């Protein structure tokens, strides 16, 4: 599977070389400014009425011609077919005259380039090559310490590894530059006859280009230094791939150079039947290049299968077939001289392969980065038994560390895919010469179609990129959210569980709308009315559903304010209960007796949240005046310690029960205040046990709770009559039963 990279690299290099060919062939001659005479003549001619009339006619005709051209897809197709027919007949003629063509060319060649001349030029070439090689060797000797250090050092982070690989390739390229400057520079310092010039220059260029390909392969595959390899393949595969790719590149470059030399020779000498000979040579070379490509491909796959036994032979066969088909098709279209179609097929084929490879590459890069990150993490700390609650929470957090790169994996993959597709799109546009970069007045159908396609693809890909990023980020947050277990307070991330799905839907709708709009706009549909209509509709809906909008908007702000979370105990305008569900419009709270209240957010003015951070609860005990307060303090402290040790809620107590001393004196007793601080929701249980514990310990230590009693003081010495006694006890009873002092608020759920 990985062997496919080889073909990709080779084909890309072919693309670069072949595309650079025609560009260098262009020559421009300088245009001189017109003389004064010319200008006078021109103005005189322009003033002539006949000339003006003729110009007008020409302009009209040109206009009709442009429209015809713009519309005539059919004509274009006809022209294409005609051209292909011409080409085929030329091929047939070449085929018929194939016997004498090489002879003819050989004869001409021998005539022009004699044996002596060839040997002499070879001598010169050798001298130049030695010069270039000498310079490169010198550069290498001076840069060797750096290179050796790069190859030997163990790099810790991927970034450093990549830098080292690039530096190493940069050194190799700099050496190559020295070689090129030395050899080609020395060559161009001499004067040459044109044929020799072309021959030698092509030879030197071919050597340089092949070595550049070799250096690029070195950068990516590093066949001998696995540490600096950018592409995730084994050493054997790296060597195989770089060797086959280099072999193919060499054949390709030599073929291109040879054809160029041949074309120049034909152009200079113009022999009889030279065109046919050139065609024959070109077709032959193309055949050789394609054959080499096929050979390299099959040999590469064969050896790769032996290197990785049992690694997806079926898919390997599929890819091999695909690439072979690609090569054969390219050859066929090249022979028929349908270059744009050939390039398109080649580009799209390479795109398909490279998308797959790039995906694997990005995956691997992320895998290594994550593995590095994991390796760098400290080992999980050993949990000690005496840890208190805060430390426990920390330990849990450390254990749940997720690597920081995972979110970016789909994004990176999409960015890479985006870049690949867009660049291939641009290359295709260049190949078809669509001129999408110029704003044509009357674009052709193809131009229109292509720019629409390109725009839509860009819009879709960018939207996809954004959507993936947002979705991964949101899903990650949502997956990390654990709904609170019964009885514990929900954390601050609870509101995210509410807001994030909403955000996701809103984002998706927005993105879809934007993509649809931009595609429509690139297709030439005027989207302004749609936008205007949508905004009118929006205003109408906004007025109609004013309160609904109010609910939604205030809901969002309540959530952002973190005023309440699911599971919290809140009070809103006399309504109390646990928040059970938060929707986009309303809030549902369940009263502790089961009733469910639904409150639209718009109605919420203020609210009280009982479940935040901590709760202080104060209790009071009434004891007689003769109680030993120090003993009380000590006993309460004991109770507090007991509570703290409770396995169920001990951890939730932030400050345990403690005495606050006498809070006030009443008519018949002292009021001893105690207080404790717990996490929200735990206070009821603690209070229950605190009451019980204090009562028990008071009783055990002989402290009585003060009871309401009435002392009846009787004046006089004589004993009371029964009636008097009854009246007194009735009065006392009345005094004790009435006017209960204010106790704690009955607020327990």
């Amino acid at each position, binding site marked *: 599977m990985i062997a496919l990279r080889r073909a990709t690299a080779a084909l890309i290099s072919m693309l670069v070389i072949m595309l650079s060919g025609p560009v260098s062939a262009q020559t421009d001659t300088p245009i001189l400014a017109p003389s004064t005479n010319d200008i006078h003549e021109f103005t005189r001619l322009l003033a002539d009425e006949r000339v003006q009339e003729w110009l007008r006619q020409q302009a009209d005709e040109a206009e009709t011609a442009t429209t015809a051209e713009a519309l005539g897809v059919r004509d274009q197709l006809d022209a294409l077919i005609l051209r292909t027919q011409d080409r085929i007949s030329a091929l047939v003629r070449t085929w018929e005259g194939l016997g004498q063509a090489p002879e003819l060319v050989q004869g001409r060649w021998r005539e022009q380039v004699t*044996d*002596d001349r060839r*040997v*002499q030029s*070879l*001598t*010169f070439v*050798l*001298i130049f090559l*030695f*010069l270039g090689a*000498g*310079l490169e*060797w*010198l550069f290498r*000797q*001076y840069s060797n*310490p750096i290179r*050796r*250090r790069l*190859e*030997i*050092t*163990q790099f810790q982070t991927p970034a450093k590894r990549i830098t080292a690989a690039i530096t190493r390739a940069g050194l190799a390229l700099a050496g190559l530059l020295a070689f090129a400057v030395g050899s080609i520079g*020395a060559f161009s310092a*001499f004067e040459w006859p044109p044929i020799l010039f072309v021959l030698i220059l092509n030879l030197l260029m071919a050597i340089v280009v092949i070595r550049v390909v070799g250096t690029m392969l070195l950068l990516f595959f590093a066949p*001998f230094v696995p540490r600096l390899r950018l592409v995730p393949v084994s*050493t054997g595969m790296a060597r195989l791939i770089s060797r086959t790719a280099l072999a193919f590149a060499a054949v390709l470059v030599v073929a291109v150079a040879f054809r160029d030399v041949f074309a120049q020779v034909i152009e200079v000498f113009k022999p009889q039947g030279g065109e046919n000979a050139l065609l024959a040579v070109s077709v032959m070379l193309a055949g050789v290049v394609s054959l080499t490509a096929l050979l390299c491909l099959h040999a590469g796959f064969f050896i790769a299968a032996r290197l990785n036994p049992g690694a997806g032979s079926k898919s390997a066969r599929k890819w091999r077939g695909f690439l072979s088909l690609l090569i054969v098709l390219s050859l066929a279209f090249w022979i028929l001289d349908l270059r744009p179609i050939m390039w398109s097929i080649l580009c799209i084929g390479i795109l398909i392969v490279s998308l797959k490879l790039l995906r694997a590459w990005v995956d691997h890069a992320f895998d290594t980065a994550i593995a590095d990150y994991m390796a760098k993490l400290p080992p999980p700390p050993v949990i000690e038994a005496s840890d208190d609650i805060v430390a426990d929470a920390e330990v849990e957090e450390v254990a749940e560390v997720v690597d920081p790169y995972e979110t970016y994996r789909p994004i990176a993959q999409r960015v890479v895919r985006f870049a690949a597709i867009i660049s291939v799109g641009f290359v295709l546009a260049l190949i078809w010469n669509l001129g999408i970069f110029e704003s044509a007045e009357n674009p052709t159908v193809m131009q229109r179609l292509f720019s629409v396609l390109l725009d839509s693809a860009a819009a879709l890909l960018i939207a996809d990129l954004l959507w993936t990023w947002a979705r991964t980020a949101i899903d990650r947050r949502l997956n990390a959210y654990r709904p609170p277990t019964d009885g514990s307070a929900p954390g601050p991330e609870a509101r995210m569980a509410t807001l994030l799905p909403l955000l996701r839907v809103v984002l998706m709708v927005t993105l879809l709308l934007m993509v649809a709009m931009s595609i429509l706009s690139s297709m030439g549909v005027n989207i302004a009315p749609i936008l205007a209509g949508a905004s009118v509709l929006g205003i109408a809906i906004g007025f109609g559903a004013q309160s609904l909008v109010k609910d939604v908007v205030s809901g969002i702000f309540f959530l952002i304010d973190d005023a309440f979370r699911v599971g919290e105990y809140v009070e809103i305008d006399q309504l109390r209960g646990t928040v059970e569900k938060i929707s986009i419009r309303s809030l549902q709270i369940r009263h502790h007796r089961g009733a469910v209240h639904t409150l639209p957010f718009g109605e919420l003015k203020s609210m009280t949240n009982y479940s935040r951070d901590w709760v202080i609860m104060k209790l009071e005990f009434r004891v007689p005046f003769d109680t030993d307060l120090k003993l009380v303090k000590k006993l309460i402290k004991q109770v507090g310690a007991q509570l703290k040790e409770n396995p169920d809620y001990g951890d939730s107590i932030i400050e345990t029960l403690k005495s606050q001393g006498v809070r006030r004196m009443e008519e018949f007793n002292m009021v001893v205040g105690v207080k404790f601080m717990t996490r929200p929701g735990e206070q009821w249980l603690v209070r229950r046990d605190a009451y019980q514990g204090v009562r028990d310990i008071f009783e055990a230590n002989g402290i009585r709770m003060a009871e309401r009693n009435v002392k009846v003081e009787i004046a006089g010495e004589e004993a009371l009559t029964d009636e008097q006694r009854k009246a007194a006890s009735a009065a006392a009873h009345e005094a004790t039963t009435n006017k209960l002092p204010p106790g704690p608020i009955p607020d327990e759920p």
Partner: protein
Amino acid sequence: MTSRLTPAIILRAVRIWSGLFLLAFVTSHLTNLSFGLISIDAMDAARPYLSGVWTGQITGTLLFVSLLSHFFLGLWAIYVRPTLRTNTQDIVQLLTGVLVVPLLATHAIGISMAANAGLNLGYADTVRLFWLGAPTIGLLQVVMLSVVWVHGCAGLFTWLRSKENAGRLLYWLYLLAVIVPVVALLGYAEAGREMLIAGQNGGELAQNPAMPENVTVPFAQIRQITNIVIIGSIVLAALTLAARLVRLTLQKTQEVVLVRDGGPQMVSTSALSMLDGFQRNDQPHANLCAGRGRCGTCAVRIVKSDFPLPSPSEMELRTLYRVGAPEGARLACQLKPAGGRVEVLAIYPADYTFEDARPSDAPSATGAPA
């Protein structure tokens, strides 16, 4: 430390000094060639001082003896060496060494025998021959020059790199190693152009001068001897390789497992030195003299060996003593373990050069790269 001269040490010295002598001659001769940048006449004017001094009675004999001994020592090295797949430089040196004599034969024998016959060939004659008369021979001269120079420089730099205080000097020599042949080749090319132009215009320079009276050059004999030398040297090289092949097939080898610094296991054979074993497994190891036992940078400390190791040779002991290696250290390039598993610690990091401060008396035992 004894100063006993073992055959290995003598051979090494002879190889180095004969090579240096030959290189000195080549350098001088190339400097003469670079006068071609001025003119062919200038080349001839400088000839007695730069080339003539080397072909006198004594110097000529010395040159001949050096060439012969260097050639045969080279063949011997090919035969003896455990592996030929060491590093690029060694392979280049081997190939160029084998090629030198066949390439040189035409030039050297032709000129010297013509001189013996009384025909003193000047640069104008040779340049005419090489560029106009027989361009193929001219092409071969360029090839020969490159091959000889590359071979000479490879040997020189391998030798110098094992010298501790050659560091600064090397950087200048590198420059010289490029300038000398490049200028010589450019001189040759310029002389050739001068000659070609003369040939096109029918200039006097391009005319073959009349053969002086009473001189008969035995051309047939020259050709015969040249052919014998060319074929003979090629046959000799082929025979050496064949003998080497026979030696390797007859040699019984054991598998050796090398472990360096507790790293991965490296499988090697008893026919290979430890350094070759490292290199075969793509594990870089310091070796400034390319495994010739001169520099001592490949030294390792033996931790454990299944079988007793062969005792060090005189040459190895000298080198170890010179670099002040600790007790129990061996040169990886000279040590051929007999078999089994050998665990060692590298004493110097793999990218060690003499510019790095040499660790004082006791080099760090770990030696792992930082």
